[in-house]
């Protein structure tokens, strides 16, 4: 076995041990990630056209403060943009959709 293959195997074994060691946090984080994916999907579905946080919340059945948190995060990572103002609220839409 070449030295590169040995190193690869060593890393693989090390990662396996690490996964075992962090089993609890990994399980909890994985559950959170799955929930987050579902919420993001529901929010993004609403963001195909410009809409406000309360409108997304109502349509997706997600609390508005949570919708705002996700919209702020998606905006930060370049997936959502602010479009214009609708009364006291701002409207957002998916960058892919615009």
């Amino acid at each position: 076995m070449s030295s590169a293959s040995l190193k690869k195997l060593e890393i693989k074994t090390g990662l396996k041990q690490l996964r075992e060691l962090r089993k609890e946090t990994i399980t909890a984080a994985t559950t959170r990630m799955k929930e987050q994916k579902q919420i993001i999907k529901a929010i993004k579905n609403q963001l195909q056209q410009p809409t406000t946080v309360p409108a997304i919340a109502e349509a997706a059945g997600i609390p508005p403060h949570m919708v705002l948190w996700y919209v702020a995060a998606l905006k930060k990572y370049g997936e959502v943009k602010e479009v214009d103002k609708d009364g006291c609220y701002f409207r957002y839409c998916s960058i892919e959709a615009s």
Partner: protein
Amino acid sequence: MRLEAKIEVDAVVIGGGIAGLQTALDLAEQDYLVVVVEKDASVGGKMIRLSKVFPTLDCASCITTPKMAAAAHHENISILTYGDLKSLDRSSDGRLEAVVEKKPRFVDEAKCIGCRQCEYDCPILVADENQGGFSARKAIHIPFSNAIPQVATLDVDHCILCGRCEKVCPTQAVDYFQQPQTIRIHAAAAVIATGFQMTSLHDKPQYGSGEITNVIDALQMERLLAPHGPYNRVLRPSDGMEPDSIAFVQCAGSRDRSMGVPYCSRVCCMYAIKQAMLLSGALPLADITIYYMDIRAFGKNYEQFFQNAQAMGIQFVKAKVASLAAAENGAVEVCYEDQVNGGVTRTSHDLVVLSLGKIAAWNPFGTCPVEVAEDGFIRSVSPRLAATLTSMEGVFAAGAAAGPKDIVDAIAEAGAAAMKAASYLSACHRPKQARSGVSINVKPQPSRAVAMG
């Protein structure tokens, strides 16, 4: 195998906020070798997270960032970020020894180029403490856009070890097996600049114990007002509404024996006035009210600043707020005792900001034998004549570590601490460390095994 490193310097500065950085720069300019130990992943402290400073309304980041960069690039200064101070005491040779555990970032600092590819690819969102929790960061992230150093940090509590960050990293900087590193710093003098923290939003049941979404603290409002804030504008966190009516509740954590903070935090009046002025610029049609017991505008040009705020139409209501409660449509009902007209009054606001108290960020008990005062801050042995002197010879205090103070005073005191430390170093007749810059000589010590994570 635990990695150990040893550093020999003239002075060690504990804390990389504005006071710590100023102290380090002033000492380094006098040709002393300095190490700055910072517990966070970036230097900058509280000030880098502020929007603007009073009474000049200068951009806080525009003042702090050059100081951070100057310290990071100074040949006489070495910065140790993400380090836990385990002990600071005098060693047998009479010099001070600071033992610091450098926490693993799980990213090689020498290889990371700060491109944030790992952050963009990471699938886990985590509440971003650098944005007051209003937005998210990733499990692997760079703390903020002007962080120094621009190095990613992996938060293992939220990592699923999916391997994406490692795959996308162009420099193979991600290292899941990184270990903590013990660094022993030997210095002749030390300056404690550990700063302050705010009392908890959860400590006051009368104000909702942190459960009312539209009741936020002043540092969170700083983030809403900052240009790179979570929403890039001021919005109500419950639903994203632009608030029409905003209230500030003064002495919400200070001058309050029930909170264990009987003293005045000295800066709350001025930062509330500053935030109110910035809000009236950002939201010209909004009603802004400050509920106060008395306004303490003691510094240079502070009284003028207060008067300017009154002239701008900010309402000052002399009252003690008794309670806050969630009302309809996300509003917050403020119940207060009017100290001018008398009686209990109830009124609603879209957003309420609590001016929480300042408490010491670091308790030296068990870490360092330096004395603390009854208020929890480092005790000055000569508060009137030499405020930076502590109970330990060769150990000085700067900034809010020695008591609540504003930025102007913290920077001035940092200069004073540097001067005292320099005098002490000079009086010690110890030769300055060789002028080849600070180098951290890392060598693996075959000591006890360290559990990962």
